[in-house]
C-alpha cells in the first residue's frame, strides 16, 4: 500500500467518474428501452460498438470532431429505429424472451458485419486536438478528454431528464411505461412512441461508444464486455429507473477504479460483488420498484 497518497486516490476517483459516465450512458439507454418496451436489448453493446465505428468512419469523411459528435448518435438512432420497425415489432406480444433472443442474434450479425467492413484488428482512435493534454483540478493534473466525457454525459442526462419530465412527449413516454393499453385507448400511437424511444436508447449507446473510442480504442468485440457492465449497472440501479442507472453507473465505475489502486487482482470482479450484495439485500435494485417484473 506504499505510495498511495490521498491525492492519488482523488485522481483515481475522477478516473472512475469518467469510466462511470460511459456506463451511465449505456445503462440509461438500456433502462429507457426496457422501461418502455419491456425489451431487454442484448444488442446494446453492439450499438455501442457501431457508434464507435460510425464515428471512426465518419471522421474520415468529415474530419470535424464536433460535427461527428452530433451526427454519430443520429446515425445510430436511425439504424436502431430501422431495427425496431423491421425486426422487433413483429415480436411484440409473443413473450418477453423473444425480442431478447432476436437482439442476441442481431448482435452476432452486427459484430461480424463490422469485422467484414473494418477488419478483425482493433484500431486506435486519436483524441481531438483541442481536448488533448490535461487540466488542473485542484488535486492534480487530469486528462482533459475525460473531463469532457463527464461534461457531455451530464449534459445528455440533463437533456434526457428535461425531455422526459418537462415535455408533452415525455409525459406520453412516462404514461406509456405505466400502462401502454390505456395510452393507446386515449388515441395515442404507442407504436410510434416505442419506435422513438428505441431510437433514443440506441442513439445514446452510440454516443457512449463514440466517446469511449479515444479512451480505449475500437474493436469489433468492444461491445461484448460493455454489455455485461451495462447489465450489472441496470440490475444494481433497478430496471426502468433513470436515477438508478446514474447512481449505479457512477458507483460501479468508481469502485472499479479504486479497486485497481488497492486490490488490482479483484478489480474486474468488484462490480459483480456489488451486484451480488444488492441482489441479496434488495433484489429489485437500489431504485427499482418492487413488483415491476412480475
Amino acid at each position, binding site marked *: 500500500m506504499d505510495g498511495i497518497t490521498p491525492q492519488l486516490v482523488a485522481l483515481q476517483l475522477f478516473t472512475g467518474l469518467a469510466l462511470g459516465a460511459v456506463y451511465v450512458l449505456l445503462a440509461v439507454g438500456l433502462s429507457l428501452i426496457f422501461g418502455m418496451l419491456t425489451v431487454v436489448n442484448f444488442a446494446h453493446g453492439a450499438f455501442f460498438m457501431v457508434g464507435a465505428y460510425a464515428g471512426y468512419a465518419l471522421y474520415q469523411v468529415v474530419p470535424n470532431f464536433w460535427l461527428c459528435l452530433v451526427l454519430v448518435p443520429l446515425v445510430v438512432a436511425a439504424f436502431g429505429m430501422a431495427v425496431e420497425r423491421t425486426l422487433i415489432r413483429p415480436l411484440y406480444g409473443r413473450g*418477453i*424472451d423473444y425480442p431478447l*433472443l432476436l437482439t*442476441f*442474434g442481431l448482435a452476432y450479425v452486427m459484430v461480424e458485419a463490422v469485422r467484414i467492413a473494418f477488419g478483425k484488428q482493433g484500431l486506435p482512435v486519436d483524441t481531438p486536438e483541442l481536448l488533448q493534454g490535461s487540466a488542473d483540478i485542484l488535486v492534480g493534473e487530469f486528462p482533459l478528454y475525460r473531463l469532457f466525457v463527464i461534461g457531455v454525459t451530464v449534459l445528455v442526462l440533463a437533456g434526457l431528464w428535461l425531455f422526459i419530465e418537462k415535455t408533452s412527449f415525455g409525459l406520453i413516454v412516462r404514461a406509456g411505461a405505466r400502462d401502454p393499453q390505456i395510452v393507446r385507448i386515449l388515441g395515442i400511437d404507442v407504436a410510434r412512441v416505442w419506435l422513438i424511444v428505441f431510437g433514443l436508447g440506441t442513439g445514446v449507446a452510440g454516443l457512449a461508444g463514440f466517446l469511449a473510442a479515444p479512451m480505449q480504442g475500437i474493436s469489433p468485440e468492444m461491445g461484448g464486455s460493455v454489455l*455485461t457492465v451495462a*447489465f450489472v449497472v441496470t440490475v444494481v440501479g433497478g430496471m426502468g429507473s433513470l436515477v438508478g442507472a446514474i447512481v449505479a453507473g457512477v458507483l460501479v465505475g468508481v469502485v472499479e477504479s479504486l479497486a485497481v489502486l488497492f486490490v488490482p487482482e479483484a478489480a474486474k470482479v468488484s462490480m*459483480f460483488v456489488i451486484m451480488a450484495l444488492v441482489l441479496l439485500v434488495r*433484489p429489485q435494485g437500489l431504485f427499482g420498484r418492487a413488483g415491476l417484473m412480475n
Partner: protein
Amino acid sequence: MNAHSDALYDVAPPRRTFAHIRTHRVLASVLVLLALPWLIPNQSVATNILIYGLYGVGFNLVFGYMGMLSFGHAAFFGVGAYAAGILIAQAGAPWWVALPAAVLVAGVLALAMGLLAIRTRGIYFAMVTLALAQCVYFLVYQFPLSGGENGLRGVNVAQVHLPGLTVDLLDPTAKYLAFLAVVAVALLAVSRVLASPFGGAVEAIRENEARTRACGFNVEHTKLMAFVLSGALCGLAGALAAIHLSSVAIESLHYETSGLVVMICLLGGMGTFFGPFVGAALFLLIQDVFSLWTEHWQLYAGAIFMFFVLFFPKGVWGTILEKTHGR
C-alpha cells in the same frame, strides 16, 4: 400426455408409432445417436454433436421446460471442463473420479449462482446469470491451476478400463461409443426426472408460476433444484469436451459459449427431449458449411438464428413434433 388426456381434450390422437417413440424416448434417442457416426462422415463432428447435445439437454431443462432464459450456462460447462481437466492433467485422476467430480463441482456452482439469480424474476434472470458467469470467467482466469489465458493441456485419457472390457479412446469410433454410454445414462436420468412429479412442477412453473405457487408447490425450491440439475448436466458435457479435445480453452467459459447453447436449444426445439441434439447438429452443420467458403460464418449463424426466432420459434424438432401431433 397419455391416451386418456388426448381423449379428454379435443386434440387429434398421436399416431401410434409416434406414441411408442414418445414412451421410449431415451431408447429412441440413443438408437438415433448410435447410428449417427455412420450417417455423417466425420467422427469428430459426431462426437461434438453428442457433447453439445448433452450441453443443450442440460440447458433445456431450465430454458425449455421451466421457461427461464439463462445466459450463464458457459460457467457450468467451463467449470465442469476445468474440474475434470485439472484432475486428469495435474492430479492424474482416472475418468471415474474426474467425471463425477465435474458434475459435483458444476452442481455446487449452480447452487451458488442459483441462490442469487433465482431471487430475481423474469427478464432479470438472463442478465444476472450472464453477469455471474462473466464473474466466474474472471475467477477461473486468475485461478493458479487453470493455466490462465493458455488454458489447460494434457487432459489425456487414452483408455477406459471396465471389468472385462477395455475401451481405447484413441480410436474415434470407440471414443464415440464410450461417450454415448455416458450420454445415455444422463438421458435416462433426465427422462426419469421429467416424468416425476418434480418434472411436472418444473413445467407448471413455465405455464403459470402464480398458479403453481397457489397449488402449494414451493416454486423457489423447484427452480433452484432444476437449476442445479441443469448445471450438473452441463458440467458433465464440459468434462466430456475436455476429454475429447485433451485440453480446455478459457473460451469455454466465455459469453459466446453461453450464447451457443441458447442457439442450439432454440434451433433444435426448446422443451423437446431430442431437440438439443438436432440443434447441435444443425449448428455444427452451419458452422462447417459456411466456414468452408467464408471466415465470417457467424454472420450467417446469427442471421439464421434471427430467422428462427421470427418464423420458427419452436425449432426444427419442435416444428416436426407439432406437425405430427406429437407434443
